[in-house]
Protein backbone atom coordinates (compact mmCIF):
# COMPACT_ATOMS: atom_id res chain seq x y z
CA UNK A 1 0.00 0.00 0.00
CA UNK A 2 2.47 2.58 1.14
CA UNK A 3 4.96 1.33 -1.41
CA UNK A 4 2.35 1.67 -4.15
CA UNK A 5 1.47 5.13 -2.92
CA UNK A 6 5.07 6.17 -2.93
CA UNK A 7 5.53 4.63 -6.34
CA UNK A 8 2.51 6.39 -7.79
CA UNK A 9 3.33 9.77 -6.27
CA UNK A 10 6.97 9.44 -7.28
CA UNK A 11 5.95 8.48 -10.77
CA UNK A 12 3.64 11.48 -11.05
CA UNK A 13 6.27 13.82 -9.68
CA UNK A 14 8.99 12.62 -12.01
CA UNK A 15 6.74 12.59 -15.04
CA UNK A 16 6.35 16.35 -14.76
CA UNK A 17 8.62 18.39 -16.93
CA UNK A 18 10.87 20.68 -14.93
CA UNK A 19 9.76 24.30 -15.03
CA UNK A 20 10.92 27.56 -13.55
CA UNK A 21 8.63 27.02 -10.59
CA UNK A 22 10.67 24.04 -9.49
CA UNK A 23 13.86 26.02 -9.32
CA UNK A 24 14.97 28.32 -6.54
CA UNK A 25 15.99 31.12 -8.81
CA UNK A 26 15.65 31.83 -12.48
CA UNK A 27 18.74 33.80 -13.30
CA UNK A 28 18.28 35.85 -16.40
CA UNK A 29 20.33 38.32 -18.33
CA UNK A 30 19.03 40.99 -20.60
CA UNK A 31 21.21 42.65 -23.17
CA UNK A 32 20.14 45.99 -24.49
CA UNK A 33 21.58 46.16 -27.98
CA UNK A 34 20.74 49.84 -28.11
CA UNK A 35 23.24 50.45 -25.34
CA UNK A 36 25.85 47.95 -26.44
CA UNK A 37 28.77 49.62 -28.13
CA UNK A 38 30.59 46.41 -28.96
CA UNK A 39 33.61 47.51 -26.94
CA UNK A 40 34.46 43.98 -25.84
CA UNK A 41 35.03 44.81 -22.18
CA UNK A 42 32.74 41.94 -21.25
CA UNK A 43 34.91 39.53 -23.23
CA UNK A 44 38.02 40.60 -21.35
CA UNK A 45 36.32 40.59 -17.98
CA UNK A 46 35.02 37.10 -18.59
CA UNK A 47 38.46 35.95 -19.66
CA UNK A 48 39.96 37.21 -16.43
CA UNK A 49 37.21 36.02 -14.11
CA UNK A 50 36.81 32.50 -15.38
CA UNK A 51 40.39 31.34 -15.97
CA UNK A 52 39.80 31.25 -19.69
CA UNK A 53 43.05 30.49 -21.44
CA UNK A 54 44.61 32.69 -24.07
CA UNK A 55 45.02 30.34 -26.98
CA UNK A 56 47.31 32.48 -29.07
CA UNK A 57 47.22 33.65 -32.63
CA UNK A 58 47.84 30.33 -34.35
CA UNK A 59 45.13 28.41 -32.55
CA UNK A 60 42.70 31.29 -32.90
CA UNK A 61 43.17 31.18 -36.64
CA UNK A 62 42.62 27.43 -36.51
CA UNK A 63 39.29 27.98 -34.83
CA UNK A 64 40.11 26.87 -31.31
CA UNK A 65 39.22 30.14 -29.67
CA UNK A 66 38.16 30.23 -26.04
CA UNK A 67 35.63 32.96 -25.39
CA UNK A 68 32.67 32.28 -23.19
CA UNK A 69 31.21 35.52 -24.43
CA UNK A 70 31.95 36.90 -27.85
CA UNK A 71 30.84 39.89 -29.85
CA UNK A 72 29.46 38.68 -33.14
CA UNK A 73 29.97 41.23 -35.87
CA UNK A 74 27.97 41.36 -39.09
CA UNK A 75 28.77 43.77 -41.87
CA UNK A 76 26.14 44.94 -44.28
CA UNK A 77 26.93 46.71 -47.52
CA UNK A 78 30.24 47.75 -49.02
CA UNK A 79 32.59 50.45 -47.86
CA UNK A 80 31.94 53.38 -47.52
CA UNK A 81 28.28 52.60 -46.98
CA UNK A 82 29.07 49.69 -44.72
CA UNK A 83 27.00 49.16 -41.66
CA UNK A 84 28.14 47.12 -38.72
CA UNK A 85 25.80 45.36 -36.38
CA UNK A 86 26.93 43.28 -33.49
CA UNK A 87 25.52 41.13 -30.80
CA UNK A 88 27.18 39.71 -27.70
CA UNK A 89 26.70 35.97 -27.67
CA UNK A 90 27.17 33.65 -24.74
CA UNK A 91 25.55 30.54 -23.33
CA UNK A 92 21.82 31.26 -23.35
CA UNK A 93 21.13 28.97 -20.39
CA UNK A 94 18.17 27.51 -22.21
CA UNK A 95 15.47 25.95 -20.10
CA UNK A 96 14.92 23.38 -22.85
CA UNK A 97 18.56 23.05 -23.66
CA UNK A 98 19.39 20.65 -26.49
CA UNK A 99 22.89 20.21 -25.13
CA UNK A 100 21.71 18.80 -21.82
CA UNK A 101 19.80 15.81 -23.07
CA UNK A 102 22.57 14.61 -25.33
CA UNK A 103 25.34 14.29 -22.77
CA UNK A 104 25.74 10.57 -22.10
CA UNK A 105 27.19 11.08 -18.63
CA UNK A 106 24.99 13.93 -17.37
CA UNK A 107 27.95 16.28 -17.25
CA UNK A 108 25.65 19.09 -18.29
CA UNK A 109 22.25 19.52 -16.68
CA UNK A 110 19.90 22.11 -15.27
CA UNK A 111 20.60 23.03 -11.69
CA UNK A 112 18.44 24.47 -8.98
CA UNK A 113 19.27 28.02 -9.98
CA UNK A 114 17.75 27.42 -13.39
CA UNK A 115 21.21 27.50 -14.88
CA UNK A 116 22.49 25.29 -17.62
CA UNK A 117 25.62 23.99 -15.98
CA UNK A 118 28.67 22.05 -17.01
CA UNK A 119 30.53 19.81 -14.60
CA UNK A 120 34.04 19.83 -15.98
CA UNK A 121 35.32 16.84 -14.08
CA UNK A 122 32.44 14.65 -15.22
CA UNK A 123 32.93 15.51 -18.89
CA UNK A 124 34.34 12.74 -21.06
CA UNK A 125 34.65 14.90 -24.14
CA UNK A 126 32.16 13.51 -26.63
CA UNK A 127 31.63 17.11 -27.78
CA UNK A 128 28.07 16.25 -28.65
CA UNK A 129 26.75 19.16 -26.60
CA UNK A 130 28.69 21.56 -28.81
CA UNK A 131 27.13 19.99 -31.88
CA UNK A 132 23.66 20.18 -30.44
CA UNK A 133 24.02 23.79 -29.28
CA UNK A 134 22.51 26.08 -31.92
CA UNK A 135 24.31 29.12 -30.48
CA UNK A 136 27.84 27.72 -30.83
CA UNK A 137 28.80 28.84 -27.36
CA UNK A 138 30.37 25.71 -26.02
CA UNK A 139 34.15 25.54 -26.14
CA UNK A 140 36.32 22.52 -26.09
CA UNK A 141 39.76 22.25 -24.53
CA UNK A 142 41.77 20.91 -27.41
CA UNK A 143 44.86 20.65 -25.23
CA UNK A 144 46.15 21.56 -21.80
CA UNK A 145 46.49 25.29 -21.47
CA UNK A 146 49.27 27.09 -19.69
CA UNK A 147 49.43 30.56 -18.30
CA UNK A 148 52.79 32.25 -18.78
CA UNK A 149 54.56 33.40 -15.63
CA UNK A 150 52.83 36.47 -14.28
CA UNK A 151 49.43 35.49 -15.58
CA UNK A 152 49.23 32.32 -13.51
CA UNK A 153 49.05 34.56 -10.44
CA UNK A 154 45.71 35.99 -11.52
CA UNK A 155 43.89 32.68 -11.83
CA UNK A 156 40.62 32.69 -9.96
CA UNK A 157 40.74 30.10 -7.16
CA UNK A 158 36.96 29.72 -7.25
CA UNK A 159 37.02 28.46 -10.81
CA UNK A 160 38.63 25.24 -11.95
CA UNK A 161 41.37 25.29 -14.51
CA UNK A 162 39.98 22.95 -17.13
CA UNK A 163 41.89 19.95 -18.35
CA UNK A 164 42.34 18.94 -21.96
CA UNK A 165 39.42 17.07 -23.44
CA UNK A 166 36.78 18.92 -21.46
CA UNK A 167 33.92 21.08 -22.64
CA UNK A 168 33.36 24.45 -21.04
CA UNK A 169 31.04 27.38 -21.38
CA UNK A 170 29.58 30.47 -19.73
CA UNK A 171 28.27 29.75 -16.23
CA UNK A 172 26.74 33.17 -15.51
CA UNK A 173 29.69 33.38 -13.09
CA UNK A 174 28.19 30.73 -10.88
CA UNK A 175 30.96 31.22 -8.34
CA UNK A 176 29.59 34.71 -7.68
CA UNK A 177 26.04 33.43 -7.49
CA UNK A 178 27.20 30.82 -5.02
CA UNK A 179 28.91 33.44 -2.91
CA UNK A 180 25.85 35.68 -2.94
CA UNK A 181 23.62 32.79 -1.99
CA UNK A 182 26.01 31.96 0.81
CA UNK A 183 25.76 35.47 2.23
CA UNK A 184 22.02 35.44 1.81
CA UNK A 185 21.78 32.14 3.62
CA UNK A 186 23.75 33.51 6.55
CA UNK A 187 21.19 36.25 6.85
CA UNK A 188 18.27 33.95 6.12
CA UNK A 189 16.95 35.73 3.06
CA UNK A 190 16.87 35.38 -0.68
CA UNK A 191 19.52 36.95 -2.84
CA UNK A 192 18.58 40.56 -3.40
CA UNK A 193 18.38 42.15 -6.79
CA UNK A 194 21.71 43.51 -7.93
CA UNK A 195 23.60 41.59 -5.27
CA UNK A 196 25.16 39.29 -7.80
CA UNK A 197 26.62 40.38 -11.08
CA UNK A 198 28.57 38.26 -13.50
CA UNK A 199 31.89 39.72 -14.59
CA UNK A 200 30.52 40.85 -17.95
CA UNK A 201 27.60 42.69 -16.36
CA UNK A 202 29.81 44.26 -13.75
CA UNK A 203 32.22 45.56 -16.30
CA UNK A 204 29.86 46.75 -19.04
CA UNK A 205 30.57 50.48 -19.32
CA UNK A 206 27.24 51.32 -20.91
CA UNK A 207 25.23 49.10 -18.58
CA UNK A 208 23.80 47.26 -21.54
CA UNK A 209 23.81 44.03 -19.60
CA UNK A 210 21.40 43.51 -16.72
CA UNK A 211 21.41 40.41 -14.59
CA UNK A 212 18.97 39.19 -12.02
CA UNK A 213 16.27 36.80 -10.95
CA UNK A 214 13.24 36.77 -13.19
CA UNK A 215 11.20 35.15 -10.44
CA UNK A 216 11.38 38.47 -8.61
CA UNK A 217 8.88 40.67 -10.50
CA UNK A 218 10.51 43.87 -9.23
CA UNK A 219 14.03 43.07 -10.29
CA UNK A 220 15.65 45.17 -12.98
CA UNK A 221 15.89 42.22 -15.30
CA UNK A 222 12.20 41.40 -14.95
CA UNK A 223 11.40 44.93 -15.94
CA UNK A 224 13.69 44.88 -18.92
CA UNK A 225 12.48 41.55 -20.27
CA UNK A 226 8.98 42.95 -20.38
CA UNK A 227 10.20 45.61 -22.76
CA UNK A 228 8.48 45.40 -26.16
CA UNK A 229 11.90 45.21 -27.79
CA UNK A 230 12.72 41.97 -26.02
CA UNK A 231 13.40 38.86 -28.08
CA UNK A 232 15.29 35.60 -27.93
CA UNK A 233 17.97 34.75 -30.44
CA UNK A 234 16.76 31.79 -32.52
CA UNK A 235 13.56 31.88 -30.49
CA UNK A 236 11.87 29.75 -33.14
CA UNK A 237 13.88 26.76 -31.94
CA UNK A 238 11.97 26.86 -28.65
CA UNK A 239 15.01 26.39 -26.52
CA UNK A 240 13.56 28.88 -23.99
CA UNK A 241 16.78 30.84 -23.40
CA UNK A 242 17.49 32.76 -20.21
CA UNK A 243 19.24 35.51 -22.11
CA UNK A 244 16.94 38.17 -23.47
CA UNK A 245 18.03 40.66 -26.09
CA UNK A 246 16.47 44.07 -26.47
CA UNK A 247 16.38 45.01 -30.09
CA UNK A 248 18.36 47.92 -31.35
CA UNK A 249 16.16 50.74 -32.56
CA UNK A 250 17.59 51.48 -35.95
CA UNK A 251 17.65 55.19 -36.70
CA UNK A 252 17.33 54.53 -40.44
CA UNK A 253 14.19 52.52 -39.96
CA UNK A 254 12.50 54.71 -37.38
Amino acid at each position, binding site marked *: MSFMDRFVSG*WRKHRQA*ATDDDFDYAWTMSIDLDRCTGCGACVTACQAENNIPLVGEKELAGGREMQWIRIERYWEGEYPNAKLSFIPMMCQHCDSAPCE*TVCPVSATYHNQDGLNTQIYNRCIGTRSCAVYCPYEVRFFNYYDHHWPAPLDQQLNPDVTVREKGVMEKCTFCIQRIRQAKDHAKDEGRRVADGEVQPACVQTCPSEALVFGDRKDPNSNVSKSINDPRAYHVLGELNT*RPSVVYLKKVDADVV
Partner: protein
Amino acid sequence: MVSHAIGLFHDPESALHAAGQLKSAGFAQPEIMSPVPIHGVEEVLGPKKSVIKRFTFFGGIFGALGGFALAAGTAVMYLHPTGGRPIITIPPFLIISYEMTILCGILATVLGFLISARLPVFRERIYVPETAVDKFGVTVPCDSDEQFSDAERILEQAGAEEVRRLGDPS
Protein backbone atom coordinates in the same frame (compact mmCIF):
# COMPACT_ATOMS: atom_id res chain seq x y z
CA MET B 1 29.48 -52.22 -17.64
CA VAL B 2 27.50 -50.13 -20.09
CA SER B 3 28.92 -49.98 -23.56
CA HIS B 4 27.66 -48.45 -26.75
CA ALA B 5 27.10 -49.95 -30.14
CA ILE B 6 27.74 -47.50 -32.91
CA GLY B 7 27.02 -48.12 -36.54
CA LEU B 8 28.47 -45.88 -39.20
CA PHE B 9 26.41 -45.22 -42.29
CA HIS B 10 27.15 -43.58 -45.56
CA ASP B 11 23.86 -41.86 -46.00
CA PRO B 12 21.30 -40.29 -43.68
CA GLU B 13 18.36 -42.41 -44.87
CA SER B 14 19.99 -45.67 -43.81
CA ALA B 15 21.01 -44.16 -40.51
CA LEU B 16 17.49 -43.00 -39.82
CA HIS B 17 16.15 -46.38 -40.83
CA ALA B 18 18.59 -48.12 -38.47
CA ALA B 19 17.64 -45.80 -35.64
CA GLY B 20 13.97 -46.59 -36.21
CA GLN B 21 14.72 -50.31 -36.23
CA LEU B 22 16.66 -50.09 -32.99
CA LYS B 23 13.91 -48.14 -31.33
CA SER B 24 11.22 -50.57 -32.35
CA ALA B 25 13.43 -53.47 -31.22
CA GLY B 26 13.11 -52.11 -27.71
CA PHE B 27 16.48 -50.45 -27.29
CA ALA B 28 16.89 -47.27 -25.33
CA GLN B 29 16.61 -44.04 -27.29
CA PRO B 30 19.22 -44.23 -30.10
CA GLU B 31 21.29 -41.19 -30.92
CA ILE B 32 22.19 -40.15 -34.43
CA MET B 33 25.48 -38.34 -34.94
CA SER B 34 25.84 -36.56 -38.22
CA PRO B 35 28.09 -34.00 -39.95
CA VAL B 36 25.05 -31.99 -41.06
CA PRO B 37 21.66 -31.55 -39.48
CA ILE B 38 19.38 -34.23 -40.93
CA HIS B 39 15.71 -34.00 -41.51
CA GLY B 40 13.13 -36.51 -40.50
CA VAL B 41 14.62 -37.43 -37.15
CA GLU B 42 11.43 -36.60 -35.33
CA GLU B 43 9.37 -38.95 -37.49
CA VAL B 44 11.63 -41.81 -36.51
CA LEU B 45 12.68 -41.10 -32.97
CA GLY B 46 9.65 -39.21 -31.74
CA PRO B 47 9.01 -35.48 -31.48
CA LYS B 48 11.57 -33.23 -29.89
CA LYS B 49 10.51 -30.35 -27.76
CA SER B 50 12.81 -27.46 -27.23
CA VAL B 51 12.70 -25.28 -24.15
CA ILE B 52 14.83 -22.62 -25.81
CA LYS B 53 11.86 -20.54 -26.88
CA ARG B 54 10.82 -20.15 -23.27
CA PHE B 55 14.27 -18.94 -22.36
CA THR B 56 14.18 -16.44 -25.20
CA PHE B 57 10.69 -15.27 -24.30
CA PHE B 58 11.29 -14.79 -20.60
CA GLY B 59 14.74 -13.37 -21.20
CA GLY B 60 13.18 -10.82 -23.50
CA ILE B 61 10.50 -9.90 -21.01
CA PHE B 62 13.07 -9.60 -18.25
CA GLY B 63 15.16 -7.35 -20.50
CA ALA B 64 12.21 -5.16 -21.40
CA LEU B 65 11.16 -4.58 -17.82
CA GLY B 66 14.72 -4.49 -16.53
CA GLY B 67 15.81 -2.03 -19.20
CA PHE B 68 13.03 0.37 -18.38
CA ALA B 69 13.59 -0.07 -14.67
CA LEU B 70 17.30 0.57 -15.12
CA ALA B 71 16.72 3.78 -17.02
CA ALA B 72 13.86 5.08 -14.88
CA GLY B 73 15.31 3.89 -11.59
CA THR B 74 18.72 5.39 -12.08
CA ALA B 75 17.18 8.64 -13.29
CA VAL B 76 15.19 8.87 -10.07
CA MET B 77 18.13 7.88 -7.89
CA TYR B 78 20.10 10.94 -8.87
CA LEU B 79 18.00 13.72 -10.26
CA HIS B 80 19.50 15.52 -13.20
CA PRO B 81 16.88 17.66 -14.88
CA THR B 82 17.96 17.96 -18.49
CA GLY B 83 16.54 19.87 -21.40
CA GLY B 84 13.29 20.77 -19.63
CA ARG B 85 12.18 17.16 -19.81
CA PRO B 86 10.66 15.05 -17.08
CA ILE B 87 12.96 12.90 -14.99
CA ILE B 88 11.17 9.76 -16.19
CA THR B 89 11.11 10.48 -19.89
CA ILE B 90 9.26 7.59 -21.46
CA PRO B 91 10.21 7.66 -25.17
CA PRO B 92 13.99 7.43 -24.76
CA PHE B 93 13.64 4.91 -21.96
CA LEU B 94 11.60 2.72 -24.29
CA ILE B 95 14.58 2.62 -26.62
CA ILE B 96 16.79 1.44 -23.77
CA SER B 97 14.09 -1.08 -22.94
CA TYR B 98 14.04 -2.27 -26.54
CA GLU B 99 17.78 -2.77 -26.69
CA MET B 100 17.85 -4.54 -23.36
CA THR B 101 15.03 -6.81 -24.51
CA ILE B 102 17.21 -7.99 -27.34
CA LEU B 103 20.35 -8.25 -25.23
CA CYS B 104 18.69 -10.31 -22.53
CA GLY B 105 16.83 -12.32 -25.16
CA ILE B 106 20.11 -13.23 -26.82
CA LEU B 107 21.84 -14.12 -23.58
CA ALA B 108 18.88 -16.20 -22.41
CA THR B 109 18.78 -18.00 -25.75
CA VAL B 110 22.41 -18.95 -25.36
CA LEU B 111 21.77 -20.15 -21.85
CA GLY B 112 18.79 -22.14 -23.03
CA PHE B 113 20.81 -23.67 -25.83
CA LEU B 114 23.62 -24.73 -23.53
CA ILE B 115 21.26 -26.21 -20.98
CA SER B 116 18.99 -28.02 -23.40
CA ALA B 117 21.82 -29.33 -25.58
CA ARG B 118 23.75 -30.36 -22.47
CA LEU B 119 26.86 -28.41 -23.42
CA PRO B 120 29.65 -28.00 -22.54
CA VAL B 121 30.51 -31.64 -22.03
CA PHE B 122 32.20 -32.33 -18.73
CA ARG B 123 31.60 -36.04 -18.26
CA GLU B 124 33.01 -37.93 -21.22
CA ARG B 125 30.61 -39.01 -23.91
CA ILE B 126 31.19 -41.44 -26.73
CA TYR B 127 32.14 -39.98 -30.05
CA VAL B 128 33.32 -41.11 -33.46
CA PRO B 129 35.32 -38.47 -35.34
CA GLU B 130 34.19 -39.74 -38.73
CA THR B 131 30.71 -38.47 -37.99
CA ALA B 132 32.03 -34.94 -38.24
CA VAL B 133 33.24 -35.58 -41.78
CA ASP B 134 31.02 -37.78 -43.92
CA LYS B 135 29.59 -40.62 -41.84
CA PHE B 136 26.26 -40.85 -40.09
CA GLY B 137 26.50 -42.68 -36.81
CA VAL B 138 23.75 -44.38 -34.86
CA THR B 139 24.46 -45.30 -31.27
CA VAL B 140 22.59 -47.17 -28.59
CA PRO B 141 23.68 -48.11 -25.09
CA CYS B 142 23.98 -51.86 -24.56
CA ASP B 143 23.88 -53.44 -21.13
CA SER B 144 25.19 -56.83 -22.17
CA ASP B 145 26.97 -58.73 -24.90
CA GLU B 146 23.70 -60.15 -26.17
CA GLN B 147 22.24 -56.71 -26.49
CA PHE B 148 25.30 -55.59 -28.38
CA SER B 149 25.10 -58.43 -30.85
CA ASP B 150 21.40 -57.66 -31.34
CA ALA B 151 22.21 -54.07 -32.02
CA GLU B 152 25.08 -55.03 -34.30
CA ARG B 153 22.78 -57.25 -36.31
CA ILE B 154 20.12 -54.58 -36.68
CA LEU B 155 22.68 -51.99 -37.68
CA GLU B 156 24.33 -54.19 -40.25
CA GLN B 157 21.00 -55.17 -41.69
CA ALA B 158 20.18 -51.51 -42.11
CA GLY B 159 23.35 -51.08 -44.14
CA ALA B 160 26.00 -49.99 -41.67
CA GLU B 161 29.47 -49.96 -43.13
CA GLU B 162 30.97 -50.67 -39.79
CA VAL B 163 29.77 -51.36 -36.29
CA ARG B 164 31.95 -50.49 -33.34
CA ARG B 165 31.66 -51.19 -29.68
CA LEU B 166 32.61 -48.29 -27.50
CA GLY B 167 32.91 -48.52 -23.78
CA ASP B 168 31.06 -45.99 -21.78
CA PRO B 169 33.75 -44.32 -19.72
CA SER B 170 31.45 -43.61 -16.79
